[in-house]
């Protein structure tokens, strides 16, 4: 092997030939850090196997390609479908050439960053890496042929020019090539590393792989029981643990309970601060012994929460909204106060949304293997493994290179761990360290409801003024919501170990109480607009002696759902006040062509009756079902969404049947219509579930919701008919998202349909029968 390194510069990247290899050969795409506070050391040392290169893209001599990304799959399919398609197009290779996508493992993937905005920020780095790589392959071919790069063309991984052709694999054969690309960011933060520079990107008009309905490659292994789920991982010497969490969200440990050794001879109790675990060689022994310990453990009492029935009174009267800076939306402008004062008609109402649970079908679990040398490997299902790694290192007081996180398929949890912690990981690490053996921590169903984070409750005061022409002359809103993203690992808090700070008014990004304006205003025809968002501490956070309280975390459309529901329901009510059809009313206040287009498509595709609400047949009484229609709109991550709900309400029972949901989505470039359709269907189901059923119950001490009876979700027999309409707008040039926004649309459309059906406004969620009956009596 030669020692010399030949280097070529390509759009700011560096291509190096590090001699030759005897067998195989490959091009690896690594990176040069432009600026990073702590990632440099982490990146340099974070591989178990120093010879394994942490590359975004690897091109091998057999023409196969491997992609690596710090992102994970939670059922969105993006890593296995959209990512492959986007990168195959950018690299000019067939979809099938990408034989593997490695996601999440901290010692095998390059970039970190949370699993959200997958087709926006998420894929952009990988796409740029692929563009640099394609240019490097052209450079190699140009050198080989003695032809200028601009004389070359690529088709399906074969470069042609000057009368010659060569496949990518042939160009890397017997070579040890490294392409170093410019990168910024910090690996273990929320956003991870970002590829820098501006390599030429393939124009949308030339896409060949993007837009086709490729299947998700992980489905066959999952349905034939060949996939290794996180729950399936076993390591030698592993014991099973259950955690005995405190009696309340503010209780401290007074005396740990005991175990009857005659019944459970191998079980061990581990206490560290207020963290109490029970560990045994078999899972059944751990479960039974932990129940015995829980029954005999003494905790201090605590009451410091307002309780669910008093939540909104607490928000109005007692919560501190003054310490946190109020956010004003970018589009706020004009003179809303004067316009409101001179309005001919006015709609003023308050909208309330409860705490909701991510509620994964499988409770959180993790397996930790803490070694005598102070390194630890954690097997997990997590949306931000590098951030988790940072949190665990902080907890242990060690450099990040002593922590490795390995990722597996698991139950989706819809945003809960995008800042690094799903629940069980830190507890598994602490128990493994205490016992000196691998420990698998599985939360039980009740713990997942009672000790995980929740999607924050909130309320909004909306005022809409109409002028003499029944057009909106002023819109003002004040949104109120406690801090939405608490990434502190709860086991570390209980054990009294270091964590990132709790949310506070002056805290750094993602650890502060600021409530941003998360729902972009789309009705550009409204000239006088005032949108303000008010934030505060989490409920019980400062009152709890543990500092725990009702911890919150982002769920699918964090903060945006809490702001979009009030806006869209209020707009439908204002349309009624104006005597206008609610779709036409929205069109009359829109300027954006994409928004108008999807609203018109929604009207055509949903069987919409063009008229004002309420329905002429509306009734708030009787045993006969009454029917209504409602509409909602959202703009998120470059995509426009419109939804129509058609529902039947039985006034006497308060029962609501959602009969049909129609979703029209314009995501810009449609990357994979098949997978997008499935994501939209799924989101519509979760949205229907949120509208009808979901609310976290809590008393003054903690969450009382504990199972699927106390937290009901949609069942198959109650599902609506779903119609998904996908509008491809390649000229827009962005890849919109599928799974995040889809679940936010149904609830405001269903609430508007309720008003249409009954003539009574529904401004709070969920629309359970008891609440509905009370509304209809009013």
């Amino acid at each position: 092997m030669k020692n010399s390194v030949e280097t070529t510069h390509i759009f700011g990247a560096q291509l190096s030939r590090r001699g030759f290899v005897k067998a195989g050969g490959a091009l690896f795409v690594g990176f040069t850090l432009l600026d990073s506070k702590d990632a440099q050391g982490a990146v340099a040392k974070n591989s178990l196997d120093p010879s394994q290169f942490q590359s975004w893209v690897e091109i091998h001599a057999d023409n196969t390609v491997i992609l690596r990304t710090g992102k994970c799959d939670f059922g969105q399919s993006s890593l296995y479908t959209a990512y492959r398609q986007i990168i195959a197009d950018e690299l000019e290779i067939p979809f099938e050439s990408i034989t593997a996508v490695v996601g999440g493992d901290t010692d095998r993937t390059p970039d970190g960053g949370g699993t959200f905005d997958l087709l926006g920020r998420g894929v952009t780095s990988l796409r740029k890496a692929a563009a640099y790589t394609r240019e490097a392959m052209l450079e190699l071919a140009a050198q080989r042929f003695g032809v200028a790069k601009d004389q070359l063309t690529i088709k399906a991984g074969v470069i042609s020019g000057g009368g010659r052709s060569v496949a990518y694999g042939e160009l890397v054969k017997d070579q040890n090539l490294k392409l170093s690309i410019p990168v910024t960011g910090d690996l273990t933060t929320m956003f991870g590393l970002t590829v820098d520079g501006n390599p030429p990107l393939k124009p949308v008009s030339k896409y060949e792989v993007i837009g086709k309905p490729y299947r998700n490659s992980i489905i066959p292994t999952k349905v034939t029981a060949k996939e290794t789920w996180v729950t399936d991982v076993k390591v030698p010497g592993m014991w099973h643990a259950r955690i005995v969490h405190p009696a309340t969200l503010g209780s401290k440990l007074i005396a740990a309970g005991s175990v009857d050794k005659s019944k459970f001879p191998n079980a061990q109790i581990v206490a560290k601060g207020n963290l109490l675990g029970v560990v045994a060689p078999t899972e059944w022994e751990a479960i039974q012994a932990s129940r015995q310990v829980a029954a005999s453990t003494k905790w201090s009492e605590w009451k410091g929460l307002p309780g669910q029935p008093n939540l909104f009174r607490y928000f109005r009267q007692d919560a501190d909204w003054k310490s946190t800076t109020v956010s004003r939306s970018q589009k706020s402008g004009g003179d809303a106060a004067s316009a409101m004062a001179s309005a001919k008609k006015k709609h003023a109402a308050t909208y309330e949304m409860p705490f909701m649970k991510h509620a994964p079908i499988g409770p959180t679990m993790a397996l930790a293997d803490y070694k005598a040398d102070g390194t630890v490997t954690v097997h997990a299902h997590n949306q931000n493994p590098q951030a988790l790694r940072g949190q665990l290192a902080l907890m242990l007081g060690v450099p990040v290179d002593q922590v490795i996180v390995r990722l597996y398929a698991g139950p989706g949890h819809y945003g809960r761990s995008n800042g690094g912690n799903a629940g069980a990981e830190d507890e598994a690490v602490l128990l493994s360290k205490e016992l000196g053996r691998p420990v698998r921590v599985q939360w039980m169903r009740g713990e997942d409801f009672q000790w995980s984070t929740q999607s924050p409750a909130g309320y909004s005061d909306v005022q809409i003024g109409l002028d003499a022409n029944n057009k909106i002359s002023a819109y003002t809103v004040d949104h109120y919501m406690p801090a939405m993203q608490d990434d502190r690992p709860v086991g570390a808090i209980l054990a009294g170990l270091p964590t990132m700070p709790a949310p506070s008014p002056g805290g750094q990004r993602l650890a502060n109480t600021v409530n941003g304006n998360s729902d972009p205003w789309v009705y550009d025809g409204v000239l006088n607009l005032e949108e303000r968002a008010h934030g505060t501490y989490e409920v019980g956070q400062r009152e709890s002696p543990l500092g725990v309280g009702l911890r919150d975390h982002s769920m699918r459309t964090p903060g945006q759902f809490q702001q979009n529901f009030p806006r869209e329901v209020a707009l439908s009510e204002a349309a009624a006040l104006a005597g206008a059809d609610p779709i036409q009313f929205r069109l009359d206040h829109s300027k954006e062509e994409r928004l108008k287009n999807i609203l018109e498509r929604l009207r055509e595709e949903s069987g919409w009756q063009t008229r004002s609400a309420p329905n002429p047949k509306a009734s708030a009484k009787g045993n006969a079902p009454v029917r209504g229609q409602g509409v909602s709109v959202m703009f998120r991550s470059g995509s426009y969404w419109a939804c129509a709900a058609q529902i039947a309400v039985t006034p006497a029972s308060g029962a609501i049947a959602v009969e049909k949901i129609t979703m029209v989505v314009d995501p810009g470039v449609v990357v994979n219509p098949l997978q997008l359709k499935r994501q939209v269907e799924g989101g519509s189901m979760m949205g229907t579930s949120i509208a009808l059923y979901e609310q976290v119950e809590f008393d003054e001490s903690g969450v009382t919701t504990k199972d699927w009876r106390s937290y009901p979700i949609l069942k198959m027999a109650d599902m609506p008919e779903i119609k998904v309409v996908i509008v491809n707008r390649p000229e827009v040039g962005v890849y919109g998202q599928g799974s995040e926004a889809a679940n936010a649309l149904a609830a405001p459309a269903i609430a508007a349909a309720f008003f249409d059906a009954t003539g009574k406004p529904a401004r709070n969620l969920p629309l359970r029968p008891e609440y509905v009956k009370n509304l209809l009596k009013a």
Partner: protein
Amino acid sequence: MTITVNGQKREVQSPADTPLLYVLRNELDVMSPQFGCGLAQCGACSVLVDGKEVRSCVTPVSSATGKEVTTIEGLPARWAKQKGLSGTDAGKTLHPVQQAWIEEQTPLCGYCQSGMMIKATELLEKTAKPSDAEIKAAFTTSGPSAHLCRCGSYYAIVEAVRHASSIMAGGAK
């Protein structure tokens, strides 16, 4: 204690009151049934015992002795036996439910889908051509609880059950 799992007799050491779920996963390395609630409220842990869906998280292993337990791992062989397939044909054939789940791209996260496919198999073995109402009833009211999917794949499941039914009848979709 001996139980039959996917056609094989397996010796079990776990205590008799151990839920079947933990015996399958931790002792016998049969990993497809998943822990969801431990309360028979979700269906993620469903297996067939003598052709009937049971929730393995609340079923003591002792109650399965002398009975035939089938999980996703055993579906291809179950189908091959029902169709009289043998040798290489049997080895490469998936159960129609599995084929349909792939062709319809049904799972999202997929954690509940092992239980969903078990319920679909139970349904289709009794009712070869179920109506949509029968499909919805099977997944909602026929067992100890509804089968829950948090990702919202219900619509895709109905399509996949219809598709599996048509494969089983020997026709294309």
